[in-house]
């Protein structure tokens, strides 16, 4: 396959970026999208240019590092992570636009790499259960109904990649935040901090400069792990209830 790439190049956070065109040839349809970029980078290094910077690590769809917007879609046309996207999803001769996640809470570090530490701070605000090591009761002391455990798991699957924010026209982090609120909120172990958790996490989310939710559903469509849009609805309910109680 031969492809034309238009890639967002930006030297660092302080400079302006722009799209740069590149040609790659000899791309196998079995390659992952990132392997295709590896080919481009090898080419660039040998020609004395700086390779395109992009975040990636596990390359098996679970670490959440990879984060490219391909032709305007977070993680590209398939519902998966960029690293799991294969070149057979494209046609020979295609032109592909590759851009970083765009949100003011995710400033660009270089090229396609953005700073997602805002997500960490949302978790730090309350996305945990206070259970210091050694304090745990016997695991079977509290049975958890299977539907609740499954519900928790479905939300715990979030990989924190930020595709939801990238896809949202408002740059909102509602899906990310709600996934953690719901994962921990439904479990009996998470109940004592349920109210404070949702209030603190939402407050931190706002402080980071993420937008609000207009329920366009773009986030859930882009989510490689299929976190449902109702996750947000459920968090809204938790929030209103917690706000009523005043803590």
């Amino acid at each position: 396959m031969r492809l034309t790439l238009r890639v967002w190049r930006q030297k660092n956070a302080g400079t302006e970026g722009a799209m740069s065109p590149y040609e790659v040839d000899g791309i196998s349809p079995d390659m992952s999208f990132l392997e295709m970029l590896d080919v481009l980078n090898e080419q660039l290094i040998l020609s004395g240019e700086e390779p395109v910077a992009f975040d990636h690590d596990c390359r098996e769809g679970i670490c959440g590092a990879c984060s490219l917007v391909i032709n305007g879609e977070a993680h590209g046309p398939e519902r998966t992570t960029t690293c799991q996207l294969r070149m057979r999803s494209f046609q020979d001769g295609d032109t592909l636009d590759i851009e970083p996640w765009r949100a003011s809470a995710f400033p660009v570090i270089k090229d396609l790499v953005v700073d997602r530490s805002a997500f960490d701070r949302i978790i730090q605000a309350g996305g945990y259960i206070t259970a210091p090591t050694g304090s745990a009761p016997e695991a079977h002391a509290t049975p958890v109904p299977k539907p609740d455990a499954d519900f928790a798991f479905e939300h715990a699957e979030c990989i924190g990649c930020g595709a939801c924010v990238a896809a949202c026209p408002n740059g909102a982090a509602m899906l990310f935040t709600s996934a953690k609120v719901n994962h921990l909120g439904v479990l009996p172990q998470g109940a004592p901090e349920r109210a404070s958790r949702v209030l603190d996490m939402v407050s931190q989310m706002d402080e980071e400069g993420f937008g609000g939710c207009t329920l366009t559903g773009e986030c859930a469509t882009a989510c490689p792990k299929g976190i449902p849009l109702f996750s947000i609805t459920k968090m809204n309910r938790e929030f209103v209830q917690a706000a009523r109680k005043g803590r």
Partner: protein
Amino acid sequence: MRGGGRATGGRTLWDSSVGKKTVMAVSGLVMLLYLVVHMIGNLKIFFGPGEFDHYAHWLRVVGEPFMHYEWTLWLVRVVLLVAVVAHATSAYQLSRRDIKARPTKYVHKKRRASYATRTMRWGGIILGLFLVWHLLDLTTGTVHPGFRPGHPYRNVVDTFSTWYGNVLYIVAMLALGLHVRHGFWSAAQSLGVGSRTRDRFLKTTANVLALVLTVGFVSVPVAVMTQVVS
């Protein structure tokens, strides 16, 4: 929990993006309820000037003798004003936050959200402007040449006898339909009553409400234009 003390109730809501959506949902539902009543009242025009004008007069004396003349009406007006202001302020503040949160657009454009979703902001602005015109036209008569207080039937027929009156009204009502269609469902999500199992019901209700309101409101200018009402 961090920091100890925490603001309670309303403050927590108003200070957060999620809470503001709750405010929008509640105020929106208040207005929606009013619109349903308003629409039903409008349909009385099909029963002739006598019944329509009588109904309009009744609106001023509802609740008597407990309430004074126009007290109920003003009460409703105050509630509506609060709802409009809360709705518009939240919408303005949330929109500003949203725009700020996404300062750079993607070079490669891709649009996917439904038409109603995308037109919420523009639709809201159209409805706001329409509301001003509508009040000046049929409540105060300020922009209504030959406005006759106490004769709403006559005034309505007047308005819909002009081309611009019809255009403004019909465009606004179409915008209203779209706004309600997404807004009702969206409000349900903001209030946290949506769920996977309830989604179809909510979406159907939203569609029915939008359709009924639009058809109900638009039927009046259409009736005037076609001389069914004159």
